[in-house]
């Protein structure tokens, strides 16, 4: 029998707890595949967030550290500074990175810390049940914005890739999504590129993944991906946001 597809060695052989249609599982797979293809599973250190992916350390095959809410960039800073030759990655959601942990991510980028952040932007708080995130779109409903996000009350959603790209220490930032196969393939390339930028010592690298949360959006997985491409990608432009050739 010929093997045409197998689970990446970068993942443990465990059942994921994520909801149907959630992007986390796909992004886990892409990160794991990139680690495997670059031969980094044995040396990588992944720093996990608080949010739905709080259990990511149970799924990845590399060593993992679970950080307190928002603090993954501080944790990763210390890990990378003390293990400069190893791949260090933070995996963070929008509440974690763009709300409670804004100081940590901005200062890690400012210092040009040589680790990679994979930022899961699904425009909602997933684990706690659908509260408004700093990335929730205008008009989008959340359990703490029952009439939808309103600019005059809540302000406009934050574009983290653009904000962080103002920092000289950021060497590479790209926004991607995994809503269909062509986009998924681009997302994998971006993650691999970010790892390569890190290993080349060019600076901080950042991949923002527009992600679906069908459960808290109140949609089917297919509707969620369609909504993401039509609405999120319109506000959060896909593509390379910044790339510095020489670090």
């Amino acid at each position, binding site marked *: 029998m010929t093997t045409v597809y197998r689970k990446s060695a970068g993942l443990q052989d465990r059942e994921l707890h994520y909801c149907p249609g959630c992007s986390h599982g796909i992004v886990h797979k892409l990160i794991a595949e990139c680690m495997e293809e670059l031969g980094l599973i044995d040396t990588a250190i992944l720093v996990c967030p608080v949010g739905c992916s709080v259990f990511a350390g149970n799924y990845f095959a590399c060593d*993992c550290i679970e950080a307190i809410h928002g603090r993954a960039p*501080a*944790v990763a800073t*210390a*890990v990378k*500074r*003390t*293990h400069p030759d190893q791949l260090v990655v933070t995996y963070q959601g929008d509440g974690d990175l763009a709300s409670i942990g804004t100081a940590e991510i901005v*200062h890690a980028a400012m210092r040009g810390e040589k680790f990679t952040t994979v930022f899961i932007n699904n425009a909602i708080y997933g684990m706690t049940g659908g509260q408004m995130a700093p990335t929730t779109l205008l008009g989008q409903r959340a359990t703490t914005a029952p009439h939808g996000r309103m600019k005059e009350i809540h302000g406009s959603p934050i574009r983290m890739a653009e904000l962080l790209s103002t920092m000289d220490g950021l060497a590479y930032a790209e926004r991607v999504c995994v809503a269909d196969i062509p986009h998924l393939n681009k997302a994998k390339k971006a993650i691999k590129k970010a790892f390569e930028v890190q290993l080349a010592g060019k600076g901080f690298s950042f991949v923002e993944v527009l992600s679906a949360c069908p459960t808290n959006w109140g949609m089917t997985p297919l509707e969620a991906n369609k909504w993401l491409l039509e609405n999120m990608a319109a506000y959060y432009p896909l593509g390379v946001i910044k790339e510095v050739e020489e670090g």
Partner: protein
Amino acid sequence: MDTTVEKELWKGNEAVAEAAIRAGCKCFFGYPITPQNEIPEYMSAHLPEAGGVFIQSESELAAINMVYGAAASGVRAMTSSSSPGISLKQEGISAMCSGELPGVVVNMMRGGPGLGTIQPSQCDYFQATRGGGNGDYRTIVLAPCDIQEAVDMTQEAFDLADIYRMPVMILGDGMIGQMMEPIVWHDIPKRELPSKDWCASGRKGRDHSNFITSLRIDAPDSEEFNRHLEAKYKTIAEKETRWVEKDTDGCEIIIAAYGTPSRIALSAAEELEAKGIKVGLFRPQTVWPFPSERLAELAAQPSVKAILVVEMSLGQMVEDVQLAVKGAKPVRFYGRVGGMVPSVEEIAEEAEKILQEVR
């Protein structure tokens, strides 16, 4: 007397920083706050020279979480701050206790509450000895009374942290941080340290991955872990409780104090002795675990009429003294707060007053 021993004059904060480097501290993360700024300043100059990492973090929250990261990946790390900054660090201290991560946290206490004052105080005793952040946890709390002891304790703190896999706090006060005193550098007793095979520093051939976490979402697992901490804390209380006593045998009054007030109490005791009053001094070196058993034994002596607790607070350690003595003898309190330091005369006068009342 050995006259060959070299004494050096050191400022408390700088001495603590140098002691940490000598103890093999490889990372320091901190945020400026008075009266402990000489610690990060010294570290910024000397830790990189020693092959370590110094980062002035964006906040105390980031600093303690950097300590968490270094510790999780197997590296000796330290942070320091003063009272309001230590409040911010409690998030990370609680997480380190839950993730069972070693690290050293220095608190050069200043007056509170809120921004309070930059003058010395002992108003964080409750916070230091009861946990301070969320959850049922303790940290080992070493309370130096002078710079020599601050230096020795800082070096030992790293070993204690590694042995018990938990944060260890050096609880000083602004006076100890800012004062200069002669000290002697000497080797601290070597202790056997456990392997850090639990750490997340990359698998490097290990047949399984390590995952450091403070989350145990299933209640039975979480209870089991809390019971494990309980057992660990019991072991620490049995093995690591320390104190110093002076002239306690057959004394009439015990003065109990830690840190700076314990030294003032020493002078007060000399004044009282000159008047024929037998004073015993009891100084906890670990304020958690608190030396309750020994204090209870001393208080039970028929000669002891009362115990006077002196603190630079409104009365915090006095509660541990009351718990230890269990009403066997009167426990009285004298404290100065807000950055004020009790004087020798105040303590002596208070002791005499108490004795007149209880005799």
